[in-house]
């Protein structure tokens, strides 16, 4: 077991490139609490080591990771030096690791749900650009359900139903009518935006949702609360966050360890081959797409019921697309996507705390998750391998 784990770790030049990436991160980290090194030389030097490792990796043929190390090395130097120039008080205010981590988990959760949903859909061969719309529908119908029906579990149910509904539309057009999946997904986004906005104003008028809607509870782990660092982070997390963890694990299990997962992947790689052994391509894809709708909607429901406890028009502001980017970045694997989702969550968490640093620049930091996503897909897509038949409608004879 340990051997297998060790065998999966990177070797040779790849290991150097990964070390370069880690050292680049280190360059930034040393300037932050708890170390708070004040001489700019230190992050600069560390960053240079990272860049050197990256260059070396490139000469050994490991191009993508090598460039990654160089980019992160440069970023590390830049940010590290910036951090040394700001006041210690500022740093202490902004970089509270436990609060940051907890916030990262909160921001990552809706992304995680949507990303896992996206993985199912894409693995079965259907591009789901409509994750954003499904998330938004979950956010609205979740809070609507929680409000009108009185409890958050019912709200979650409503959210899931809404997500499934939109997913059904997308699935029908993409699978049965063989329409273009990207255009269809975009249509879903428009429809969800229009429908949720329309109903929102119709039901709640101009005042918005009432303030006392049943919200998803946090999970208190009292035995953890006194632990250093882990206590503040894990001691009081929302239920949905734990469910998100579970969903990631479950996705991995189902997709790679069960027959259903094998069939889903088969349908996504070579639907004709799956058809010839008797697997129903249509049915499998329908199930996968509906699942993605339900999961994305649950992520949206967490946003409205669990996080801010209200609804605003278009409150998902592009998160569905970030989730899709996470799927691509993670190479259509649950753990990879999870890592990406945590990264993006971290950037959002940072952006949230940075106003303490500079008011107007804080607005710019709102763009951080999107910039990061852009860099991520730019650096990755050319070499990653999607499921072979993703985006191609299947034609049954």
């Amino acid at each position, binding site marked *: 077991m340990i051997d297998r784990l060790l065998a999966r770790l990177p070797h040779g030049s790849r290991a150097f490139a990964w070390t370069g990436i880690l050292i680049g991160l280190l360059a930034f980290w040393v300037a932050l609490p708890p170390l708070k090194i004040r001489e700019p030389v230190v992050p600069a030097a560390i960053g240079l080591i990272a860049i050197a490792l990256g260059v070396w990796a490139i000469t050994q043929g490991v191009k993508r990771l090598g460039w990654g190390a160089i980019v992160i090395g440069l970023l590390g130097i830049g940010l590290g030096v910036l951090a040394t120039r700001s006041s210690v008080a500022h740093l202490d205010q902004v970089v509270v690791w436990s609060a940051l981590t907890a916030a990262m988990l909160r921001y990552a959760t809706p992304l995680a749900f949507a990303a896992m949903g996206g993985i199912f859909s894409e693995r079965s061969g259907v591009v789901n650009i409509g994750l954003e719309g499904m998330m938004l529908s979950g956010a609205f119908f979740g809070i609507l359900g929680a409000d009108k029906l009185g409890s958050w579990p019912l709200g979650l149910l409503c959210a899931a139903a809404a997500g499934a509904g939109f997913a059904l539309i997308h699935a029908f057009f993409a699978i049965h009518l063989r329409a273009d999946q990207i255009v269809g997904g975009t249509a879903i986004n428009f429809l969800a935006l229009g429908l949720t906005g329309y109903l929102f104003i119709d039901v709640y008028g101009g005042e918005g949702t009432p303030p006392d809607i049943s919200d998803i509870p946090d999970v208190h782990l009292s035995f953890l609360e006194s632990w250093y660092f882990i206590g503040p982070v894990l001691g009081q997390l929302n239920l949905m966050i734990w469910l998100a963890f579970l969903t990631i694990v479950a996705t991995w299990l189902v997709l790679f360890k069960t027959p259903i997962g094998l069939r889903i992947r088969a349908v996504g790689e*070579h639907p004709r081959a799956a058809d*010839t*052994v*008797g697997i129903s391509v249509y049915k499998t894809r329908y199930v996968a797409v509906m699942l993605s709708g339900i999961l994305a909607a649950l992520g949206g429901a967490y946003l409205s019921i669990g996080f801010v406890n209200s609804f605003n028009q278009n409150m998902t502001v592009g998160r569905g697309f970030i989730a899709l980017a996470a799927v691509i970045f993670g190479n259509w694997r649950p753990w990879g996507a999870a890592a990406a989702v945590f990264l993006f969550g971290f950037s959002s968490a940072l952006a949230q705390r940075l106003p303490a640093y500079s008011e107007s620049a804080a607005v710019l930091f709102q763009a951080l998750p999107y910039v990061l996503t852009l860099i991520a897909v730019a650096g990755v897509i050319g070499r990653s391998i999607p499921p072979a038949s993703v985006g191609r409608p299947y034609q049954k004879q």
Partner: protein
Amino acid sequence: MDERPVLELRGITKRFPGIVANDGVDFELRKGEVHALLGENGAGKSTLMNVVYGLYRPDEGDIRINGKAAELGSPKAAIESGVGMVHQHFMLIPVMTVAENIVLATEPVHSGILLDYAAAEKRVQEISTRFGLAVDPRAIVQDITVGQQQRVEILKALYRGADILVLDEPTAVLTPPQAQELFTIIRSLTEQGKSIIFISHKLNEVTEVADRITVLRRGKKVETLPAAGATEQGLARLMVGREVLLRVDKTAAQPTKALLSVEGLTVEDDRGIEQVRDVSFEVKGGEIVGIAGVDGNGQTELIDAIAGLRRSKAGKIVIGDEDVTGDSCKECLDAGLGHIPEDRQRRGLVLDFSLAENLALHDYDHPPASRYGWLYPKRLIEKARMLLQEFDVRGGGPHTRAGGLSGGNQQKVVLAREIDRNPKVLIAAQPTRGLDVGAIEFVHRRLVEERDEGRGVLLVSLELDEILSLSDRILVIFEGRIVGEFPPGVSEEELGVAMTGGGRRAAA
């Protein structure tokens, strides 16, 4: 061999919009026999077998298995009735393992939900030994050889309990020695009581391995006859309905100077693996050089490199007098290269463009088709009209969408475009794949004509017949290297031996 029919097809008719693919076909398979289904492209062989496998529903007619009527409405139903099919284009999932591919849809589980990989592998080993088809259950399909992949396909069918096996053009991807191995496997399977339908258009194989032969022509059954005593010429006549020229008439070649010269060429594929290794050869004006080889031995990468579509890692390419190593595709074409690509619908033509636009694909950016970026559609149309007439393209005019033509006519358009540019060298990759006999004759004749005009022709084909009948010199490519040069009189066996590495039997 038993006399009882295991499978009976009576009056099977299958229609597609505008065409009757199968017209009242009767077919009968006896237990333990190898029954070949013969016909040229478009005769309806694959359609008929797709009906048997449940992929198509017949419009008329019925099917009986072991005397009982059978409703084969889906592959699942066919599998349950004991029918297994090995398709011409393998239905294997490249990124999954052999075991996963074989047990797909009937996976063994433990604890009710989780896949039992160990059990799957064990089962695969069991049937592998039982039928004598050695495979590695853990191997990833895209990494094993074609012969091994075919074995996996056969095992897939046997695993599901097939007693009737349909093999669709199984030797299309095999060298002659590998085909012989397949025949041995087929015989051993029949000895174990399996009945086999063998679809092919290769006359020599069919006479060798089959017990009986059924010939289809244009959707109708022409005749069923015992293989013993059937001649290739007789079968060809049944297939086509007239006398067929099995060889092209041509005069001896008169080669001039080298128009294409390749030295020390090494090319990697997208995964960084070397597919072409230190290849050197020449194509002179006035000769046809044929490159024979099993698919996947580097032909695609070789052509890509010469055409400028892929950067070579090492080596030199010279077209005419120009060194085009490292040049882009456009530069290579401008240097005098004509390229008839392997897949005319995906690479040869823009199916949604009109014929005039397609014919202009290389010329559109200089006069008279355009000037300083401004396009003159009328001139394109005039030129197209001329070319379409010269090459006898039927099915449409300059405004017709290319996708609306038949395969043969589409290929004529590609030829017209390439030849009109007066290239020094013409590369023809699989130029007659999927074409009917008339179109094949046209293409062959035209290639010889171009050779006689002094061009150099590089023919890359998987059909040994074609290579043998057209080439003035034959090169054999194996694992990325040129392993032999032969004159046109060489026998298929010799070529086959070279194609598998010259006596060294591959692990397939």
